[in-house]
């Protein structure tokens, strides 16, 4: 099939940028969305033009590197899928597709469709860990955890930090990401010693990066490729309120 692409081109962080129209021909329905962009880039390079910069790594939905706002939807139209898992069979001959970078003040554009998501790393470094002294390996079943609790913690830990929640949020809020990271530890006994400090520090780091306030629109949950639930946002609200009241 043949497609018209309108892609956001921006030389660097300072450049104004804008949508540029491209035609791609002979796109197979078996291709992934990123492979389709690879085809476009080969055509551009063959013509001596600058290839479209976009992020990707594993191309199997586990690393969280790919991004893209496709026709106004983070990671495109599919549910619970990353852009690298989106296939061209979703489209038909003659379609026009608008491709933009994830947009937030905290995710500045580096080039074209590539944005800097290191704000997430800094939030994570503020408290998204448990401090463990090295020594002998503990017995695997030394700490008992109820199955339901383990499941909830694992569901939260499925977050790959891609930033689709921020991109999809009308307020560019990072609450789903931070909610998942806080929840995954708050639910488990290993997370308890740093529980309050974590909630306070990660909230502070999140606000410092300039993400928006959550107004419970739930576009984040709808866009999340890993199906992270907004109940994690409620838990973050609880954890932060609790930490504010009880911590020293």
């Amino acid at each position, binding site marked *: 099939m043949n497609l018209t692409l309108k892609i956001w081109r921006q030389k660097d962080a300072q450049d104004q940028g804008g949508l540029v129209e491209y035609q791609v021909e002979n796109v197979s329905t078996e291709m992934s969305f990123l492979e389709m962009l690879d085809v476009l880039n080969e055509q551009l390079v063959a013509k001596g033009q600058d290839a479209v910069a976009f992020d990707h790594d594993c191309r199997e939905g586990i690393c969280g590197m790919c991004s893209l706002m496709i026709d106004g939807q983070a990671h495109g139209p599919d549910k619970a899928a990353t852009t690298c898992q989106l296939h061209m069979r979703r489209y038909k001959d003659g379609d026009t597709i608008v491709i933009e970078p994830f*947009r937030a003040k905290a995710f500045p554009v580096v080039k074209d469709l590539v944005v800097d998501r290191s704000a997430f790393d800094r939030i*994570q470094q503020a408290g998204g860990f448990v401090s463990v002294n090295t020594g002998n390996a503990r017995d695997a079943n030394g700490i008992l955890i109820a199955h339901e609790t383990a499941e909830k913690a694992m569901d939260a830990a499925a977050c790959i930090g891609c930033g689709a929640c921020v991109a999809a949020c*009308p307020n560019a809020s990072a609450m789903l990401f931070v909610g998942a990271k806080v929840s995954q530890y708050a639910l488990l006994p290993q997370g308890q010693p740093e529980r309050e400090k974590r909630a*306070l520090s990660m909230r502070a780091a*999140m606000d410092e990066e300039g*993400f928006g306030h*959550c107004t419970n629109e739930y576009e984040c949950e*709808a866009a999340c490729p890993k199906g992270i639930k907004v*109940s994690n946002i409620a*838990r973050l609200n609880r954890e932060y309120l609790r930490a504010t009241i009880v911590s020293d």
Partner: protein
Amino acid sequence: MQAAEAPAQAAPCRSCRAVEFLESSIGKKIMVALAGLFLCVFLLTHLAGNLILFLGGPAFDRYAQMLESNPLLPLAESGLVILFLIHIALAVRARLANMAARPVAYQVYKGKDARTPGSSTMALTGTLVLVFIIIHVATIKFQVGGAKGPDLFGHVTGWFHNPLYAGFYVVALIGVGLHLSHGVQSAFQTLGINHPRYTPMLKKLGAAFAILIALGFISIPIYFGFFNRAPATMQTNGSAMPIGPIGGAQ
């Protein structure tokens, strides 16, 4: 990563912690939600009081007199003003921060259908409610303009004889309904209340509350504006039984 690198350490004192909470994104939203829920309690009592209009002039004026002669009324009114100020000030600040959080807008933004008519118009309906409240309080409480009846009942129903005024009430109250259709259930989430067993119930409760409040209030301008346009002084409904503590004492 070592814990020592955590940037924002615990606030050094209790009051600093409170300030930090109120300045935080989550803290602001929690205060907006709490103030919003208290305002909902006010709406319920206000609706109950206003529905007494349907019992006719004497009953309504007795109710109004009972309210106005209550020495605690100024206290309740101040509380109400404070709730509004907290709700509006923090909601507006959150809104401004949210606009700043995405300086470059998308050329195309579609989302995945999670937003509702209520959720995507909160700032708009909130502003409409604010304009409504100013007009409502000015005309009804401070009696600015309008065809003055001999009593409060006559004054209120007299206003509704103006179709423009009654129509504005209907539009504004649809705005209140929309605001609440998102606001009530959203407030519970903001307060951290989300559970597979209760959340579906709370969402239904929020929708039912929004409909009850909107339809309940709208019935008043519709009835007195379009169906019962008898001169205000004639409103001595025979069914106006003594009600409330004052009526009972008579």
